[in-house]
């Protein structure tokens, strides 16, 4: 493919989707990522551009909206809407609203290709699959781009551009595969995947193209904390040195945490609801109003330290707008207690997330985390990774992060950034008690200068430039080691799955375009019958190589959805075929596992199971 004129970054988020691009016809030193204004239905019959496309779909029944009121400049008679109107209006029609499709896309509890959304819709209602929802957001972006940017020039169409699509660092191989499938279905072929926290870091590198080398030092370990609307994503990036040049390596990623800014707004709205109508109940429309009002109040309180309270008003819902309106004052102390202490409590490094179910955060369907304490999840991640990083051969390297990069609209609140820095600093101080004559360790510093809402899309677009050789690249490879389960000869306990050992098939940190082969471990597979392998992954074990067999794996390796293969009958093959496993990471960034015959003449791809867990 000849180099496209634009390199495009797409942030397909849980609650908001964004697109940024770099025009490479501009000289590189002046080429900056810019966000695309995305036309979308904002009211029935009204289309306007917004910097973000809310990741919501509204699926009205026949005749429920005036004909043509969901039309877009590029499409007539649409029977669904994506974006602002879908989010705002759909909030009052949960049975017609598709939300958080991305969380469903990586949810092992459901069939991700089955029509299950809206989750609250009745059985006979219009439903689509999590995969289809993702396709529709991407298609909306493609149509919007072609309308606004391509304007009839075929070479400028989005399908012809180089695209960097971001995924949560915590997405496993199956969820990545589904994301690529969605992009291909939307017509986007020239694709590379990039982890979102890395994209945020690239946005920081772009903002500091001239001076980033002065802002970090060899040995720095940077924690990227990306708290989106619905998820929290964690990554560690290490600053090293090679022949005099600074090199950046992504050394660890966190687990998938369904906890984000929306949970905080929801918690605040529930508190305000108790205050505004003690003992009473607000209806869905009023709760929605209250949610917006609380978010505005929160932002003004957390932005201006002089304010002691902010008013929250809910107008009457029927015709009497004044007589049945309600009002309360949100006090700074209460808001800080709830948000800063509730979601970012000061905790030691040894803190562990609570496993009990917390009320107000769970919704049937998605596996929301039960502990709202973001800092506890941070501690758990940093502690486990620092132990694993300490086991590396290169001793003397830092194992606790000494810098942090924030991402996500939540961190517009300075109070929250400050709290995270304080908590992380306390971990560093506790780990290195002050010694006589040695100055006490420095606190954790915060890397600033990115747009918290658009950094991921912009950083992804900048990464497109980096891939063309204009800028420093973060190394890392796969963020997990992958294993298949091998049954042990121990007698099985009735009713329990037989114990297994974990055989490493793809080591941690496999780079794009590389492969590994395990010719020593052979399996005899029966032709024509589906075979399932238990599949496992670890974000901790860095020293296993392809072929390593781990017996005690429960502590550091977790089981993922199984993978399966059916050997098609082929000429010259017997009924049972000896095969071995082969792993490859594609240029796009997907993990591909195959079974290969001894003579390497035949190969079958193993499929990730995205259907319901048995």
């Amino acid at each position, binding site marked *: 493919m000849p180099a496209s004129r634009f390199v495009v970054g797409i942030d397909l988020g849980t609650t908001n989707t964004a697109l940024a691009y770099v025009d490479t016809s501009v000289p590189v030193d002046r080429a900056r990522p810019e966000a695309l204004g995305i036309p979308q239905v904002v*009211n*029935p*019959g*009204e*289309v*306007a551009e917004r910097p973000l496309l809310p990741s919501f779909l509204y699926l009205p029944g026949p005749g429920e909206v*005036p*004909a*043509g*009121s969901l*039309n877009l400049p590029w499409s007539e008679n649409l029977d669904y809407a994506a974006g602002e109107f879908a989010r705002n209006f759909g909030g009052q029609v949960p049975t017609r609203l598709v939300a958080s499709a991305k969380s469903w896309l990586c949810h092992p509890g459901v069939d991700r290709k089955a029509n299950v959304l809206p989750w609250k819709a009745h059985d006979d209602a219009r439903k689509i699959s999590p995969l289809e929802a993702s396709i529709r957001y991407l298609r909306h972006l493609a149509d919007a781009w072609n309308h606004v940017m391509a304007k009839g020039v075929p070479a400028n169409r989005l399908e012809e551009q180089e695209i960097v699509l971001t995924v949560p660092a915590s997405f496993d191989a199956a969820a990545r595969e589904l994301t690529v499938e969605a992009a291909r279905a939307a017509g986007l072929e020239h694709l590379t995947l990039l982890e979102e926290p890395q994209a945020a870091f690239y946005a920081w590198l772009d903002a500091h193209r001239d001076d980033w080398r002065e802002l970090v030092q060899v040995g720095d370990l940077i924690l990227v904390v990306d708290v989106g609307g619905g998820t929290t994503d964690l990554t560690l990036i290490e600053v090293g040195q090679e022949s005099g040049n600074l090199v950046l390596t992504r050394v660890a990623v966190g687990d998938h945490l369904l906890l984000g800014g929306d949970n905080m707004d929801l918690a605040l709205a529930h508190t305000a609801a108790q205050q505004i109508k003690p003992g009473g109940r607000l*209806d*869905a429309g009023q709760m929605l109003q209250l949610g917006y*009002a609380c978010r505005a109040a929160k932002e003004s309180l957390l932005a201006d330290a002089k304010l002691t309270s902010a*008013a929250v*008003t809910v*107008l*009457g819902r029927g*015709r*009497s*707008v*004044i*007589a049945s*309106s309600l*009002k309360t004052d949100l006090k700074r102390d209460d808001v800080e207690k709830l948000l800063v202490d509730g979601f970012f409590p000061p905790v030691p490094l040894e803190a562990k997330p609570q496993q009990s179910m917390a009320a107000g955060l769970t919704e049937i369907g998605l596996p929301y985390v039960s502990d709202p304490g973001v800092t506890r999840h941070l501690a758990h991640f940093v502690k486990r990774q620092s132990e694993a990083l300490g086991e590396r051969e290169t001793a003397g390297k830092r194992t606790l992060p000494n810098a942090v990069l924030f991402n996500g609209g939540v961190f517009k609140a300075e109070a929250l950034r400050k709290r995270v820095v304080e908590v992380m600093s306390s971990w560093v101080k506790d780990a290195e008690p002050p010694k006589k004559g040695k100055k006490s360790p420095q606190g954790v510093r915060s890397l600033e200068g990115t747009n918290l809402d658009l950094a991921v899309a912009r950083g992804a677009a900048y990464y497109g430039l980096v891939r063309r050789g204009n800028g420093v690249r973060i190394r890392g490879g796969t963020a997990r080691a992958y294993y298949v389960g091998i049954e042990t000869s121990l007698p099985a306990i009735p009713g329990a799955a037989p114990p297994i050992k974990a055989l490493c098939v793809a080591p941690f940190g496999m780079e794009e375009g590389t492969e590994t082969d395990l010719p020593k471990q052979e399996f005899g597979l029966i032709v024509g019958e589906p075979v399932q392998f238990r599949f496992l992954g670890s974000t901790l074990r860095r020293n296993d190589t392809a072929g390593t067999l781990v017996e005690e794996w429960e502590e550091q390796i977790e089981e993922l959805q199984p993978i399966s293969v059916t050997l098609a009958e082929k000429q010259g093959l017997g009924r049972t075929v000896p095969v071995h496993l082969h792993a490859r990471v594609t240029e796009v960034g997907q993990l591909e596992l195959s079974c290969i015959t001894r003579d390497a003449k035949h190969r079958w791809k193993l499929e990730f199971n995205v259907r319901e867990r048995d």
Partner: protein
Amino acid sequence: MNQDFWLGAAAGAAILAILVGALLFLAGGGRTGLGLQVLGRTLRDRQFADKVRPMLATVIESPKPVKPSGAPLRMLLILQREGRLLDFLMEDISGAPDAQVGFGVREMHRKCQDAIKKVIDLEPVLPGNENDTVTVNAGFDPSAVRLTGNVAGSPPFKGALIHPGWRVRAMRIAAPPEGADEMVLAPAEVEIP
């Protein structure tokens, strides 16, 4: 023969007249008689003739009554949708305590202001602060500048700027979708339990 000719001609003319009359009668659907009456009276009566004349002039069809445009209502619709303005203006607020009116109006004020800023860009007609001295030159647009006080003589006029005025610089009000009832300023809301 000469007499015979004239008799035959008269009889022929009479038959012809009867035939033509019958044809006219049939073709006229019974209005031939009326036509002959009008003919006679027009010849005798000058006033009647004057009344008939304009009726024979080219008839201009009057336009069919058009459906009133909803355009004048669009801004009200937007202010109702975004800020509940119509609900407020039509509500009886005489019984509501001042405090409640206060916080309700604050909320509506914010929302209506946001709504206006979203759809129109406003600028003052005359730049400057209130009570600044301004000059109104000859040829000013009387729909944009109103002169009050001791107005005398001819421009230029010097005076104090009491109100800088508002002018719409840009407008972004979308047309309603085809088929939408423009007379609906707020749809009825029905919640399904």
